[in-house]
């Protein structure tokens, strides 16, 4: 049963590994971004503040975009049709994509954390395994959101058009750059319903203040709820056969 999810995960991973540019995008681009942030904010405390937020943002961005595009290809090249005829369940497909992307997104997180600590000299307190586990929940929501969103795109360009619609507003509204409390009240209300707000808040608590996962259970619960919701939506769109 679940073995099919593992086969799909293996195949997704294989596809990414064979695509050098995508590998570079996942592993090197985040370091460039972090370096630029480090250089443009000479004040160390600003970088301390932004780095955890960037961890969540980059995981959301890459997992969302890459899943969306992979899924779109799966539909347009007809392999989805093959999978639908095969003894594969919708759960296998969603789980397979999740597992496949966990590998890369978690490696990305690891690289960013180590890079910001050792190369940029950020002061972190949280435990690494807790950061990674928290990210798993963030990535789950991002991957399933990508699957769901890809239903509404007819080509790769249209998938990219969702970035300014879905990702960019969250970067401005969810406390990545400036605190949510400093925004006008109506925008604060908006931030309450955006998942990145909770990802940023949770990671900051863990990394800046050394909170444990138990301490950030509210954020975790909201993110988990979001992940469950998008997983259901993703599975429903899969039912709409090819």
């Amino acid at each position, binding site marked *: 049963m679940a*073995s099919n999810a593992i*086969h799909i995960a293996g*195949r997704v991973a294989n*596809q990414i590994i*064979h695509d050098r540019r995508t590998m570079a995008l996942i592993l090197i681009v985040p370091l460039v971004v972090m370096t630029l942030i480090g250089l443009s904010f000479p004040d160390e405390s600003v970088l301390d503040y932004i780095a955890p937020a960037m961890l969540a943002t980059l995981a959301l961005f890459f997992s969302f975009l890459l899943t969306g595009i992979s899924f779109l290809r799966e539909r347009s090249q*007809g*392999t989805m*049709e093959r999978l639908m005829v095969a*003894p594969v369940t919708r759960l296998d497909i969603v789980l397979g994509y999740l597992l496949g992307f966990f590998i890369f997104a978690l490696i990305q997180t690891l690289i960013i954390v180590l890079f910001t600590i050792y190369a940029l000299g950020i002061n972190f307190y949280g435990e690494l395994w807790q950061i990674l586990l928290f990210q798993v929940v963030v990535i789950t929501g991002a991957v399933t959101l990508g699957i769901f969103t890809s239903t509404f795109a007819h080509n790769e360009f249209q998938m990219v058009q969702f970035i300014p619609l879905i990702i960019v507003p969250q970067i401005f509204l969810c406390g990545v750059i400036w605190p949510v409390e400093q925004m006008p009240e109506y925008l604060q209300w908006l931030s309450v319903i955006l998942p990145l707000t909770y990802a940023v808040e949770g990671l900051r608590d863990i990394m800046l203040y050394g909170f444990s996962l138990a301490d950030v259970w509210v954020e975790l619960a909201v993110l988990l709820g979001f992940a469950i919701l998008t997983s259901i939506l993703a599975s429903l769109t899969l039912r709409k*056969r090819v």
Partner: protein
Amino acid sequence: MTETAIDVNNISFSYGKLKVIDDMSVAISPGTSYGLLGPNGAGKTTLIRLMVGLLKPSSGSIRCLGKAASRELAHQIGYMPQLPALYNELSVRQNIDFFARIYGMKHKKERSQRVDEVIRLVDLWQKRNAHVNQLSGGMKQRVSLACAIVHRPPLIFLDEPTVGLDPELRVHFWNYFEELIKSGSTLIISSHTFDDAAHCNKLAFMRLGKIVAEGSPRELKQATGKLDATLENAFLYFIRREDKADGK
């Protein structure tokens, strides 16, 4: 084994307002090849997608090997879509191996042997490690066939498998199809070439979502009443007859 491999009972299907399959019934015997022949837009692909369970008929019923669509049945079906549905970033071998895994071929050595076997069968041994996006159209078609049959399904649906193949390979494919049939598999093949049609045990001439005539190539030729009739003549004959019956 059940008496019929596929039982299609009075099915209809529409895309929106467009009626694509119109009250169609088909019975296909096991261990035979059944050809769906018809012009572009006749509904061949739609009928195959209904039979493999990708689409649901708006009315009527479909049974394959005596069963309604299920996970268990899915293991017994091989499906080659009209466009070569493959992972372009992966190699020939990786593509076939992936589908072998998906179809539950767990034993590593056995799977690997079978994958090699089908690669040779479609004559791509030299290209086995090439990425699919580096292959020619006909080669992709061959990989696509390999992916459809790697798990040795008893029921095989091939949507225009010979399109884009050179004559030599076409003969090669048909030799292989005949072997599959001898070993007890049932093949459903769509095509719009009369060359393919001549190879099928039984043929359905399709047009506008209807089967206008059905029978062995010989029967269909004989029905025209001319001794030297070709399948092409027979096809035109049945279409004329149908048009006349409709008062056109």
